[in-house]
């Protein structure tokens, strides 16, 4: 059992990466596996540094493929296991993630998106959204939380372990390198103090009892012999996913109720939208934010309602429409016109959105 470091609420001023490590400790994660990549390194560094105090375990593997698969080993052994990665590491870790998807293993993945494609830049982007949500050769049977602050990183890292172990779908905390490297105050707490019970884990292998005597031996697989078996599995997973989606979906709005222009953004870009909304509202322009917190499953109904109410929609991301694609699929049939402000791999600030909205506003008035 991992030792708790935080028993009483403690405000700490730290980076997002440190926050993830502290949150994983608070969630009593047993073991982290990882491979260095900027901008997630400090998750690992912090976790490693805390080991003497936490009594948890850590393994630095030979690559992200190994980190991903070793994490599945940890999960199969019944441990709260997680890993963190980014960019090209995230790309090759899809190998393991797709195994988790098929075997419904409750692994937790923390992804700090960096520039893409390829090696690109080491810090920031929102270009790993499609990868997190639909990566691999599968159907996106994953749960993906997108955070926007260090407090979020704390809260959702804890939550991700519970979501994973409760529903048995691999679960992502998707942030970006700005969040990972950014320093801001976080209130750290013991989940129990918030009424959060950690969902108990149980082992697939080395469970209690003698295999073949007290219990059947564990026999789990990801390969099927025939198409029919696969179809059946996929249909089951889809049914389950649809059933649990309403319990998982989360979103956040800011002054969206009466917004004529609805800005849709996730993660840290949504913060800049808040700044812009405040500025624009002061000027009397009715703007609001719709921020999907779960990118998968998406909170479709609230999204459609918010879009329907608005006169115009603006998608903004530090990517070329990866969030927009996910939303538009679910917005089919609506007719509110939309515009886009994409800055792949580049930070978006409030001022950018202010400018863009004003221009849209002008068009709205003239047409």
């Amino acid at each position, binding site marked *: 059992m991992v030792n708790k470091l935080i028993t009483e609420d403690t405000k700490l*001023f730290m980076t997002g990466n440190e926050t993830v490590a502290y949150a994983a400790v608070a969630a009593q994660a047993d073991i982290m596996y990882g491979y260095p990549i900027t901008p997630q390194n400090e998750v690992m560094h912090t976790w490693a540094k805390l080991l003497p105090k936490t009594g948890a375990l850590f393994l630095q593997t030979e690559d992200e493929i190994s980190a991903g698969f070793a994490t599945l080993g940890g999960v199969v052994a019944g441990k709260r296991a997680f890993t963190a990665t980014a960019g090209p590491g995230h790309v090759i870790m899809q190998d393991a993630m797709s195994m988790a998807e098929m075997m419904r293993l409750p692994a937790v993945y923390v992804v700090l998106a960096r520039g893409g494609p390829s090696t690109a830049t080491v*810090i920031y982007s929102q270009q790993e959204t499609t990868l997190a949500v639909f990566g691999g050769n599968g159907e996106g049977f994953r749960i993906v939380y997108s955070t926007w602050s260090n407090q979020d990183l704390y809260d959702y890292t804890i939550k991700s372990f519970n979501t994973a172990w409760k529903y048995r779908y691999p679960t992502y905390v998707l942030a970006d390198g700005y969040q990972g*490297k950014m*320093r*801001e*105050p976080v209130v750290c707490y013991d989940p129990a103090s918030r009424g959060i019970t950690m969902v108990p884990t149980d082992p697939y292998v080395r469970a209690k009892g003698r295999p073949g005597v007290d219990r059947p031996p564990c026999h789990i697989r990801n390969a099927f012999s025939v198409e029919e078996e696969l179809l059946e599995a996929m249909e089951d997973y889809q049914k389950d996913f649809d059933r649990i989606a309403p319990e998982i979906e989360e979103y956040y709005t800011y002054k969206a109720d009466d917004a004529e222009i609805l800005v849709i953004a996730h993660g840290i870009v949504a*913060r800049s939208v808040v*700044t812009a909304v405040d500025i624009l509202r002061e000027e009397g322009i009715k703007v609001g934010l719709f921020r999907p917190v779960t990118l998968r499953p998406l909170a479709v109904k609230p999204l459609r309602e918010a879009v329907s109410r608005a006169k115009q929609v603006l998608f903004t991301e530090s990517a070329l429409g990866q969030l927009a694609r996910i939303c538009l699929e679910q917005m089919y049939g609506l007719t509110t016109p939309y515009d886009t402000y994409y800055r792949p791999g580049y930070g978006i600030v*409030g001022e950018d959105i202010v400018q863009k909205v004003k221009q849209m506003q002008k068009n709205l008035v003239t047409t």
Partner: protein
Amino acid sequence: MARSRIALGGEGGQGVQAIAKILVEAAYLENKNVIYIPNFGIEQRGGVSIAFSQISDDPIGEAKFAKGDIVIMLSDRALERCAQYVDPDKSIVIYDTSVCETKPTFKAKDIIGIPATKMALEDLSPRVFNMIILGVIVKATGIIQVDSCKKAIEDAFGSKFKDKPELRELNFKALEEGMNLIKSPAQV
């Protein structure tokens, strides 16, 4: 108080991020809302490194900002890269005249040249260059107290100071010298 936005740019080895960290730490000690975000190149050393700090009494939205209230540039390349954060009407620009061979060509509310590197090398020690800059920022922004700043420095270097108490003096001296480089809090 409104939000103070400080952009600080320099070469990889100049300690830009360390300065910003102490700055925001000091503000945090004063219970302000703070957010600090580093931006650096792919090189471990040698690229331009920029620190974006925001200090405010109200909750802070955006993590980065378009224009800084104070923009500090510690090298020629930083001068070039950070020009984009300068608002011609609102930003105060501070740059190190003893390192920068080029001069700012952009417009700004105020442009202040300081010979920080020279001062460090000649009068103090190259190691406390960053304290001078910190002093400059403290004075120029006027948003944090010197005492919180010293406390933050203490937190950061406590163990080093224990081994060599004279280091504490040197650092604090540098901080003050830095403050002296600025006449009065900039009007931000």
